[in-house]
C-alpha cells in the first residue's frame, strides 16, 4: 500500500515538514522534524533505487489522473540514483546542522531556516522524480528560491549581495528554461516528458524545436554554473552558512546536471543533441575551459570556501566533459562523477564547517596550525582533498579512471592527458591548505590548543569521508548504477516499447 505511494512520499514528506518546522517555532523540535523528514526521504530513495536496480520503472499518477492530463512521477535508474545521493547528502547534513546552525544563524530564525531547508530538499527531490516538464520547472523554482533564502540566512552581510547575484542569474536561467519548455509545449501539445519524447522525433528539423533546445541548454547551464555562466557560484558558496554551502554544493548543481541529462537524452534524444546539434564540440570546449580556469582560479583563492567553490566549477567541467564524449562510457563517467563529486564536496565543506564553527573564519591564515588544534577535522579534510585529487582508493580515482578510459576509447588522448593534468592542479590547491594546516604556526597562539569540533559535527563529516573511501574501494554499486543509468538514457528507456 505505502510501497505503491513511495514516489509521491519522496517529495511530500520534506514539503510537509516545512510548515511543521515553522509551526513548531521551537529550535530543537524544528530540527528534529526536519531530521526525521530528511532520513525518511533517504530511506524512500534507497527503496526506490533498489527497485530501479532490478530494472523496474515505477510510474505514479498524481491523484489518479492519467498522464498527459495529470502529472506523472516516473522513477527509473537515472533519477533513482540522483534521488539517493541528494537525500543521502541532505540527511547527513541535517544530522550535522544542529550545532552549526545554532552558531551561525540568528536564533529566532532557526525554525524558519529549517522550514526553508525542507522546501529546498523537497524541491530538489521533486525535480529529480517528476516526469512532467512543467512540474520540473516548478520544483526547480521552489528549490532555487529556497536556496537564495538559505544563503541570505548567513550573518555575513556579503551573503546578501551574493544571494541577490544568485537570484538574478538563477532567475534568468529559470526564464530560459521556461521559454524552452513553453516552446516544446507549443510544438508537441504536451508537457509529459514521455509524450514530448515520442513526438519530438517527428518534427526534429523544426526551427522552434532547435530554439527550444538552445534556450534549455543555456538556461540549465546557468543553473549548472558551467563556465562562463558560473559567476554566481563562488560568492554564493563562499558566504552562505556552512550547512547551506555543504548541502547546495553537493546537490544543487547535481540536480541541474540531471535536468540537463534528462532533456538532452530522454526528451530530445542523443542523436538529435549530438548529431543534429553541435553539442559535443561546444561542451568539450566549455568543459576544458571550466576544468582549467576553475582549477587555476582555485589556486589563487584566500578564502578556503571560495577555493573549493572554484574547484566545484572545475569539477562540473569533468561532468560536462563526460557528456561531450557522446559515448556510453563517457555518460557513465559523467553520472559516476555526479555521485562521487557530491560525496567529496559534501565531506570537504562539512569539514570546513567544523573549522568555521570553532574559529568563525575559513581564511587561509586561519587554517594555519589546524593540524594540531583540530586533528580529526583536518584528517577528514586531507582525505576529502585526496579524493578530489583522485588518489586511488577514493571515489575521485574511480571518476578519473572512467573519464580517461572514455577519452581513450575515442582515441582522444590529448583530452585524456588534459584530465590528468587538471587533476594535478588540484594537488596544488589542496596542498596549500595541507601545508598551512600542518607546517605553519598558528597566527594566534590561542589556536595552538586542541579545539576539536563537537562530535555531532565530526561524525557526519566522517560518515561522508568513509563513504568516499568505501565507494572508492568497492565501487560495484555506483558503477553498476551509473552504467545502467547511461544505458537507460541512451536507449531512452523512459519510453514504453
Amino acid at each position, binding site marked *: 500500500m505505502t510501497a505503491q505511494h513511495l514516489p509521491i512520499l519522496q517529495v511530500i514528506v520534506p514539503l510537509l515538514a516545512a510548515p511543521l518546522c515553522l509551526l513548531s517555532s521551537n529550535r530543537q523540535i524544528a530540527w528534529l522534524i526536519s531530521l526525521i523528514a530528511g532520513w525518511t526521504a533517504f530511506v524512500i530513495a534507497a527503496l526506490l533505487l533498489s527497485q530501479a536496480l532490478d530494472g523496474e520503472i515505477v510510474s505514479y499518477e498524481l491523484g489518479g489522473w492519467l498522464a498527459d492530463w495529470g502529472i506523472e512521477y516516473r522513477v527509473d535508474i537515472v533519477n533513482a540514483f540522483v534521488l539517493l545521493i541528494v537525500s543521502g547528502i541532505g540527511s547527513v547534513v541535517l544530522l550535522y546542522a544542529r550545532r552549526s546552525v545554532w552558531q551561525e544563524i540568528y536564533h529566532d530564525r532557526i525554525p524558519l531556516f529549517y522550514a526553508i531547508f525542507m522546501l529546498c530538499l523537497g524541491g530538489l527531490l521533486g525535480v529529480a522524480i517528476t516526469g512532467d516538464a512543467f512540474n520540473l520547472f516548478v520544483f526547480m523554482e521552489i528549490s532555487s528560491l529556497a536556496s537564495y533564502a538559505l544563503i541570505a540566512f548567513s550573518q555575513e552581510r556579503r551573503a546578501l549581495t551574493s544571494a541577490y547575484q544568485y537570484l538574478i542569474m538563477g532567475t534568468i536561467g529559470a526564464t530560459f528554461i521556461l521559454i524552452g519548455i513553453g516552446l516544446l509545449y507549443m510544438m508537441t501539445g504536451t508537457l509529459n516528458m514521455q509524450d514530448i519524447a515520442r513526438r519530438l522525433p517527428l518534427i526534429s528539423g523544426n526551427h522552434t524545436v532547435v530554439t527550444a533546445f538552445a534556450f534549455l541548454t543555456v538556461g540549465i547551464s546557468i543553473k549548472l554554473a558551467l563556465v562562463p555562466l558560473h559567476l554566481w557560484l563562488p560568492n554564493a558558496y563562499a558566504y552562505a552558512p556552512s550547512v547551506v554551502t555543504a548541502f547546495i554544493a553537493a546537490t544543487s548543481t547535481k540536480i541541474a546536471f540531471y535536468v540537463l541529462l534528462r532533456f538532452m537524452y530522454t526528451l530530445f534524444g542523443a542523436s538529435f543533441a549530438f548529431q543534429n546539434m553541435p553539442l559535443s564540440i561546444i561542451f568539450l570546449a566549455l568543459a576544458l575551459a571550466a576544468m582549467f580556469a576553475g582549477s587555476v582560479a582555485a589556486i589563487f583563492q584566500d578564502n578556503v570556501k571560495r577555493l573549493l567553490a572554484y574547484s566545484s566549477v572545475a569539477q562540473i567541467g569533468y561532468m560536462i566533459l563526460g557528456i561531450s564524449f557522446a559515448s556510453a562510457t563517457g555518460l557513465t563517467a559523467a553520472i559516476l562523477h555526479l555521485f562521487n563529486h557530491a560525496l567529496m564536496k559534501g565531506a570537504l565543506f562539512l569539514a570546513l564547517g567544523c573549522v568555521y564553527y570553532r574559529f568563525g573564519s575559513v581564511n587561509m591564515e586561519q587554517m594555519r596550525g589546524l593540524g594540531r588544534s583540530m586533528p580529526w577535522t583536518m584528517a577528514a579534510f586531507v582525505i576529502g582533498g585526496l579524493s578530489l585529487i*583522485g588518489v586511488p582508493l577514493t571515489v575521485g580515482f574511480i571518476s578519473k579512471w572512467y573519464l580517461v578510459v572514455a577519452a581513450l576509447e575515442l582515441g582522444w588522448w590529448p583530452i585524456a592527458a588534459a584530465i590528468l593534468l587538471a587533476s594535478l592542479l588540484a594537488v596544488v590547491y589542496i596542498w596549500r591548505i595541507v601545508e598551512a594546516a600542518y*607546517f605553519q604556526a598558528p597566527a594566534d597562539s590561542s589556536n595552538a590548543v586542541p579545539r576539536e569540533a563537537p562530535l555531532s559535527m565530526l561524525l557526519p563529516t566522517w560518515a561522508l569521508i568513509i563513504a568516499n573511501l568505501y565507494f572508492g574501494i568497492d565501487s560495484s554499486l555506483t558503477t553498476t548504477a551509473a552504467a545502467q543509468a547511461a544505458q537507460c538514457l541512451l536507449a531512452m528507456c523512459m519510453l514504453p516499447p
Partner: protein
Amino acid sequence: MTALLFAILVPLVGAVLIVLTGRHPNVRETVSILTAILLFASIASLAPAVFDGARPHLALAEPLPGLALQLTVEPLGMLFALLASLLWIVTTIYSIGYMRARQENHQTRFYTCFALSLWAAVGMAFAGNLLSLFIFYELLTLSTYPLVTHAGTAAARHGGRVYLGVLLGTSIGFLLFAIIWTWQLAGTLDFVDGGILKGTATPALLGILLMLYIFGIGKAAIMPFHRWLPAAMVAPTPVSALLHAVAVVKGGVFFVLKVVVYVFGIDTLPAIDARQWLLYIATATILLAAVVALRQDNLKARLAYSTISQLAYIVLGALLANAAGILGATMHIATHAFGKITLFFCAGAILVSTRRTRISELAGIGRSMPWTMGAFAIAALAMIGMPPTAVFVSKWYILAGAVDAGQMLAVAVLLLSTLLTAGYLLPVVYTAFFETPGKPDNETHGEAPPAILLALGVTTLGTLVLFFFPDLLLAFANQLTGSGT
C-alpha cells in the same frame, strides 16, 4: 593464502598498536620491532612455496568492475618483500638509537608512518596486477610524505613539496595514463609471462607507452624526474636509509622490472625503437648523477645522487631485455640495497655523534669512530663493485647483458661509472682516515650509540655474505628470467 593475508595485515595492525602505545616509548618501540620481525617471518614462511612454483593469491576488493585489488606472490616480488622486511628489522633497531640520541619530536608519528610505508611496500611487492601495484605505489608516496617532512621546518616543507610534486605529478600525469591506456589496448592489467601488449599496437605507439611508464615511475628516479630524491634527504636518516635507498626507490625499479617482464614482455621490447632512446637516457642518468655526486659536499646529498646513478643501472638492465640484464637488475636491487643502507646508516651515525653533515668536516673522524667509518669503507668498496662484495656480482651480470645486447655505449658507461663511483666515495674514506682535522675539536665525541653500530654491522655483513652466497638471489632471479623467456 592465510600467510599472505597475515603478511599484509601485520604492518597495518602494527601501525595501529604503535599509535595506541605512543605514550610509552619502550612499549612502542618493542611493538615496532616485533611487527618488523613478524612481517619478515610471515613473508619468509611463504618463500619456500613460491620458490617451488606456487603463486599464493588473495583478492582484497574490487575498486573497478573487472579490476580487482589483488595480491599474487611471484619470485621478483618475494625478493623485494624479503629485502624490505629484513632491512626494516635492522632499520628499526637503528631508528631507536638514532631518534633517541637526537631527541626527535613526534616519534609516534614517525614509527606509525614507517609501518604504513612498509605496508605499502609489501603491497607493491605482492601486487597481483598493474592497478594494485599503482595503488600501493601511490600509498607509498603518501605514507612517506610525513616522514620526509618530519622536521616541520621550512626546508622540510620545501623538500616535501618537491617530493610530492614530482612523485604525484609523474604518477598521475604519465603512469596512470599509461596504465589506463594499457587497459584500453590489452583489456587486462594482469601480469602475464611474456607480456600482455604483444601485437596490440604499433611499435611507435608502444614506444610512447614505454616512455610514459619509465618516466611515470618517478620512484625509479630516471632523469629529468630525479629531483625528488635529493629533496627527500631532509628526512631523518633512518628514513633516507630504508625508504630512499631501499623501499621507495627499489619499489620504483621493481615496478620498471614488472612492466618490462610482465607487461611488455622481453621478446616484445627489443622491437620498440623508443627503447634505444630510453637506454641512452638511462646511461646518461648513470653518468650525470655520478658527476653531480662528485660535487656534493653534503654527505647525504652525495649518497642520494649515487642512488640515482645506481638506480639507472637497474633500469638499464631491465631495458636490455635479455636474461643477463634482467638477472643483473634483479640482483642489483638487493645488493645495492645492502651497500647503500650501510652508507646511510654511517651518515646518520656521524650526524648523531658529531652533528656534522658535510664531507669537508669529516677530516680525521675515522680515528674517533673507527667502527662506523670502517663499515663506510667496506660499503663504499661495495658500491664501486669491488670483488669481495655483492655488487660485483650484479654489476657483472648487467655488464654481460649489455655485451649480449650489443650496447657498447652502455658497456663503456658502466665501466666509466665504476671509476666515478670510486671518485665520489673513496675521498670520503680518505678524508676520514688520513686527513688531520684543521681545527681542534671543541667537543669530544666517541662512537655512535650501540643500537646504531649493531644495525650497520649487520648490513655491512650482508654485503659480504651476499657475495659468497649469491645462490639465493640467483635462484630467485633465474626463476624470473626462466619464466620470462
